[in-house]
């Protein structure tokens, strides 16, 4: 007699979201891999699928332990400025000849696990919301460890990153290089948003989802600023005032 296993569902973006799930046995994990592959296909255009297929083939050639499609594509929230993000666990495949919009990160299995314990939110993001394209078992073990040890991104780490990023964006804002100011400010405000959410026990999703999460956690001002840098071309003075607001929030 076989036991019925509830299929995998994506964890809620909360502190307890992952621990509410069962430590994944092989059947449960298989259901996740199946769900993730389906999501990956649904969220990509034919041309993106072609790129992903090439990255997957090259990762297999290198005998990588796992490959994950991450970022806005995994969340089906691509914008005009989105890259195509991957996280490889194992050796880094060569992306020569593939589209330049690829952003590929790689970690050896031990380093990936260490990052989870260190509170690296990017590693946590991959594990929670990435579309796993293949996994030899390393990510299943990582998920089990994250559930067992109730692992959560380190807000202090994020705060340091946000502080540094806002500080640099403010320096850049004095130069008149509008395109760079807009882009760096978007990054700085995203980091500030991620810090705020993590420190309020909310797991930050894709960049284009952060504004909604910020509103829900009582930070509508930062939400408006971030959205402005993603979907508008605000005046330089407006961007500067948003950066000042983010700086005050960080300092407070």
């Amino acid at each position, binding site marked *: 007699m076989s036991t019925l296993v509830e299929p995998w569902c994506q964890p809620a973006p909360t502190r307890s979201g992952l621990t509410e799930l069962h430590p994944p046995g092989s059947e449960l994990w298989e259901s996740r891999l199946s769900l993730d592959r389906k999501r990956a296909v649904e969220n990509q255009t034919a041309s993106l699928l072609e790129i992903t297929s090439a990255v997957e083939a090259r990762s297999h050639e290198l005998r990588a332990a796992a490959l994950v499609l991450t970022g806005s594509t995994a969340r089906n929230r691509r914008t005009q400025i989105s890259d195509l993000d991957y996280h490889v666990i194992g050796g880094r495949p060569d992306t020569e000849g593939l*589209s*330049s919009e690829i952003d590929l990160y790689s970690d050896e299995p031990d380093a990936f696990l260490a990052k989870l314990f260190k509170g690296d939110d990017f590693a946590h993001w991959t594990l929670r919301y990435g579309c796993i394209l293949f996994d030899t078992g390393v990510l299943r073990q990582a998920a089990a460890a994250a559930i067992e040890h109730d692992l959560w991104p380190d807000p202090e780490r994020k705060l*340091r990153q946000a502080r540094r*990023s806002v500080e640099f964006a403010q320096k850049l804002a004095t130069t008149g290089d*509008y*395109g*760079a100011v807009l882009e*760096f400010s978007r990054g700085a405000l995203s980091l500030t948003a991620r810090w705020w959410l993590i420190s309020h026990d909310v797991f930050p999703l894709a960049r284009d989802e952060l504004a909604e999460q910020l509103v829900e956690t009582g930070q509508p001002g930062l939400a408006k600023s971030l959205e402005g840098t993603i979907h508008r071309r605000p005046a330089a003075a407006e961007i500067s005032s948003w950066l000042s607001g983010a700086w005050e929030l960080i300092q407070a």
Partner: protein
Amino acid sequence: MSPKAKVEIAREHLAKAQEELNGDLRDAVQWIFASLEAAIDALAAEERIPIDQQHWKRTDAAKELHEKGILPSDLSTLHRELNFLRKAIFYDGEELEEDGFSVEDAVAEVEAVVEIASERAS
């Protein structure tokens, strides 16, 4: 923004990167990346290569500018490396792990590009 104005910005960013070579190397990486992007923008605008404020299009533009004989070498790899490194500084950690990458060499390479952009814009 005109190519000439972009070149001026590239120059200013380059000067800040050079200053930071004796200060904070992490900031030097940010400035030199911004300088390279501005210089590519200036050259790409003259050649009518679309950039659309996307990093990856600048990577492609750097390659195309070399293929057209405007840049003596293909700087697409440098552009990609700098983009990766500057993100790593903000996202991965507090320390700059260069992994054999020389910030000084990158500054020198970008300086040459800014010179070319400057000559063409004047």
